[in-house]
């Protein structure tokens, strides 16, 4: 009896491992296809512009809300901490490093994973379930070139200015909090920011934008393309896309910081 149970468990584990590897292989081919169809961007420039509006301009409010709130909160908390050491004048420096290197891009990534990733997953999932993706293939149109590549290109282009916006608004909110909450002169705050920021700080922050763009777009689109099982299946694939891409964004955030900071 225990032997049968162990055998079944081993069989099930092997089967799940096989399925996982198969999905990884499919994801790899899907990603390669998305990049190799980039030369068709000229043909799909309207789709690119539509997607650039969706992930760029339309995402500005959520990026502003998240970066302003986290910038303000950071200034209050870090200011309180520095006050204990009599180092409140360093608030600008510490806030700037946190926002530009880590929190600006990370929050932007997580917000866009929820906003842009969920939209991709749901839209492409619904197209898959209603056989629209099969229809594209049946009539001779490459669905990856038509649906995924413009999304990827738009995210690659738009995530960089969105990161800059998140950094800028987060720092401005922190400066305002420093002035009104901690009574730090804006000159002192900004003086601790600008002269001390080095190229490495910006490289860490802005390198994350394209990495997150690739993760969010490809993971959410792949899950949309893999949707099955009716409307419930679309829901499942969308959730899976958001959870996986958010997790990967957090992991990538750590490794990009680690690799760049150790090598620059």
């Amino acid at each position, binding site marked *: 009896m225990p032997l049968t149970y162990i055998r079944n468990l081993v069989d099930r584990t092997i089967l799940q491992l096989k399925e996982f590897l198969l999905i990884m292989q499919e994801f790899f081919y899907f990603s390669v296809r998305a990049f190799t169809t980039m030369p068709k961007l000229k043909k799909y420039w309207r789709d690119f512009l539509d997607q650039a509006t969706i992930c760029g301009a339309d995402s500005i409010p959520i990026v502003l809300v998240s970066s302003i709130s986290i910038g303000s909160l950071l200034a209050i908390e870090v200011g309180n901490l520095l006050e204990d050491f009599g180092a409140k004048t360093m608030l600008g420096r510490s806030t700037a490093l946190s926002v530009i290197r880590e929190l600006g891009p990370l929050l932007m990534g997580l917000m866009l994973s929820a906003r842009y990733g969920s939209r991709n997953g749901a839209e492409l999932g619904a197209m898959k379930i*209603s056989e*629209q993706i*099969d229809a594209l*293939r*049946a*009539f*001779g*149109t*490459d669905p990856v070139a038509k649906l995924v590549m413009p999304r990827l290109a738009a995210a690659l282009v738009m995530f960089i200015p969105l990161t800059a916006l998140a950094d800028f608004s987060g720092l401005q909110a922190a400066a305002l909090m420093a002035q009104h909450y901690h009574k730090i002169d804006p000159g002192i705050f900004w003086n601790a920011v600008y002269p001390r920021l080095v190229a490495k700080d910006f490289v860490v922050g802005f390198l994350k934008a394209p990495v997150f763009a690739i993760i969010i777009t490809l993971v959410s689109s792949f899950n949309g393309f893999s949707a099955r099982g009716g409307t419930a299946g679309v829901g499942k694939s969308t959730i899976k896309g958001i959870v996986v891409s958010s997790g990967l964004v957090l992991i990538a955030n750590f490794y990009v910081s680690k690799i760049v900071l150790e090598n620059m």
Partner: protein
Amino acid sequence: MIELRNVTLKYGEKIILDKVSIEVKDNTIKAILGPSGVGKSTILKLMLGLIKPNSGQVFVDGVDITNFKEPDLYPIRRKMGIVFQGNALFDSLTIGQNFSFFLRENLRLPEDEIERRVCEQIKFAGLEGYEDQLPESLSGGMRKRVAIGRALIFNPKMILFDEPTAGLDPVSSRKILNLITDLRNHNGLGAVFVTHIIDDVFAIADRVAVLYKGKFIFDDVTEKLHESDHPFIRSILSDKILEI
């Protein structure tokens, strides 16, 4: 001409199609009859190269397309049109845009030629005045006609129908069946349609293949179906509609 030769298809460990062979000649209407979930729609997808068999071969006009890569399949697929069961119309595009979409995508035609072809198909589908409406505002029968018009946009030799009358009222069903017959009679267009409604088969099909438990148990002219003594065929002839 489309041919499946000894095709086996599995989903995981489950065998969907077990060494099936079928041939569809140009200018004939062939029905694939069988209960729901038996793999009828899968056969259409195999014919288009949308899915690949685990073993066996798929031929289109004598060319083995089984191992063709996706870009190489596009010109082959344009020889055929397909009408999906749920129509698969692009729900964010208008009827006119649904017709013109693939022309703009795949052919470098001047704008006036695209418009001419779109007008032709809209007229064919009897949808004049609906060009700017979204598919959701049309009835089931009208949507089916849009899907058929779209399938004809590349002037194919063969058209594949997945349950063409499913979900339609009797009048709309009759219109769609007449349309399929007219396409064969007036345009010389062959058709393959999968269905679980035996009356549709007797109404328009020249030949019928019956799929049961992953195998074809009958493949001949429609009239000979009555002569079959296979228990499953006998039962469907008495029940008329296969609901398994």
